[in-house]
């Protein structure tokens, strides 16, 4: 793409990333969560793929990173699910909630309140797991399609 698009994408990229991670991390307080935040982060990566040349951007965003993100997210989700069994409850039981001193373990007041990030038990951790998985998965889809377009020489001048 042109230099204007590249400069604008470089400028917008950190804000998109910060907004995406904010949505993931505040999933138990505000609207949104892992899926939505992961989609926003993947949109930022797609913006970089669209704005820059393939041979430059594929040196920074490697396929292995997205592969690891996707697999690690799903494994993290399942691990937190089985941790419930390990602590004597059922699969995906919220074993971290309402334990003072535990990470994300503070109790929350009933009714409308300002919200406390340090609540929710395993919900924020599951949010992070799903967010990491979705960002890896959606980026990997874009990466596969773009690699196909570049390797097969469809619009080689535009893509490469």
């Amino acid at each position: 793409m042109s230099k204007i698009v590249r400069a604008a994408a470089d400028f917008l990229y950190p804000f998109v990333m910060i907004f995406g991670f904010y949505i993931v991390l505040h999933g138990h307080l505000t609207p949104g969560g892992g899926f939505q935040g992961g989609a926003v982060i993947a949109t930022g990566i797609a913006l970089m793929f669209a704005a820059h040349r393939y041979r430059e951007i594929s040196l920074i965003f490697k396929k292995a990173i997205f592969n690891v993100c996707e697999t690690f997210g799903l494994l993290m989700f399942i691990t937190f699910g089985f941790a419930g069994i390990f602590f004597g409850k059922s699969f995906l039981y919220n074993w971290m909630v309402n334990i003072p001193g535990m990470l994300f373990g503070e109790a929350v007041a009933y009714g409308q309140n300002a919200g406390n990030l340090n609540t929710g038990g395993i919900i924020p951790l599951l949010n992070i797991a799903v967010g990491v998985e979705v960002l890896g998965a959606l980026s990997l889809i874009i990466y596969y399609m773009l690699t196909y377009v570049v390797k097969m020489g469809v619009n080689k001048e535009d893509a490469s």
Partner: protein
Amino acid sequence: MRNLAVASILVVLSGTFVYMTAGHDITFGRPVNTQMDDYFLARGQEQTGANNVVTAVVFDFRGFDTLGEATVLFVVVLGIGMLFRKLMAREEEESE
């Protein structure tokens, strides 16, 4: 003839739907049985520690559903990867 049959079935189904929603059996926005909703709203914050009741339902009360969604996304990416690898391998064979 076949189009006529399909059209008449559609008319009967949509007519039944409109008749039932016009104040007979189904009421939108005012469900008759609200025990589940009341339970989530009353106990969600206390039991899950999350202010967002939607997240409390999606990630705690129905966490298994979310695990299924994540697995679906994983399988989708697996399928797309296999498809594009196959396509690339085939076109490389043809070009040689």
